[in-house]
């Protein structure tokens, strides 16, 4: 039942859809950073009307939402097992972030730990994800 006569077996093709999706993700995140920096440098937040302030405050998020949509598009180009690894890693990161943020919140209230900005939560979760991903990967090796 040998199949030695077959020509070179097909390799997993380079995935142009994946490359395009992640290119757009990085473009979106770059745009997000550019908007944040430009607003920080050129906008005086104290002298804005309420609605203009709201518009400018959420403007970077339009780019972030666009980037996230392409992130998901890119993840969907991976096969089912790889997606399982991404999902497990994400759930671990989500769980750790939930426990850590609530623990810190209770400590803020009861013991008076310094107030932390909500901006801390996502980078913490991203850090947890970057640590959980190789661990989950290793589990299936």
């Amino acid at each position, binding site marked *: 039942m040998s199949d030695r006569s077959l020509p070179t*077996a*097909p390799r997993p*093709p380079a995935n142009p859809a994946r490359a395009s999706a992640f290119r757009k993700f990085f473009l979106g995140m770059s745009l997000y950073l550019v908007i944040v920096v430009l607003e920080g440098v050129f906008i005086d937040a104290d002298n804005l009307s309420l609605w203009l302030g709201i518009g400018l405050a959420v403007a970077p998020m339009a780019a972030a939402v666009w980037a996230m949509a392409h992130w998901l598009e890119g993840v969907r180009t991976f*096969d089912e*097992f790889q997606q399982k690894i991404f999902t497990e890693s994400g759930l671990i990161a989500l769980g750790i972030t939930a426990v850590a943020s609530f623990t810190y919140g209770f400590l803020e209230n009861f013991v008076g730990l310094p107030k932390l900005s909500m901006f801390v939560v996502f980078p913490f979760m991203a850090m947890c994800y970057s640590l959980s991903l190789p661990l989950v990967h290793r589990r*299936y090796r």
Partner: protein
Amino acid sequence: MKNRLKVLRAERDWSQADLAGRLEVSRQTVNALETGKYDPSLPLAFKIGRLFGLPIEQIFSDEDD
């Protein structure tokens, strides 16, 4: 679930990368399937069956069988 993927692949003298290419999955996925660390979805199981020309039950079996 147990499976005969490794044997079937060896019979055809395919590497894991060859099989991965034919199934359009990663080599790591093939490895996880062969070592029983991952059970495939039904669509992937059918694809594996079609590739080897065998019904699914001749490739995969329950651990208790």
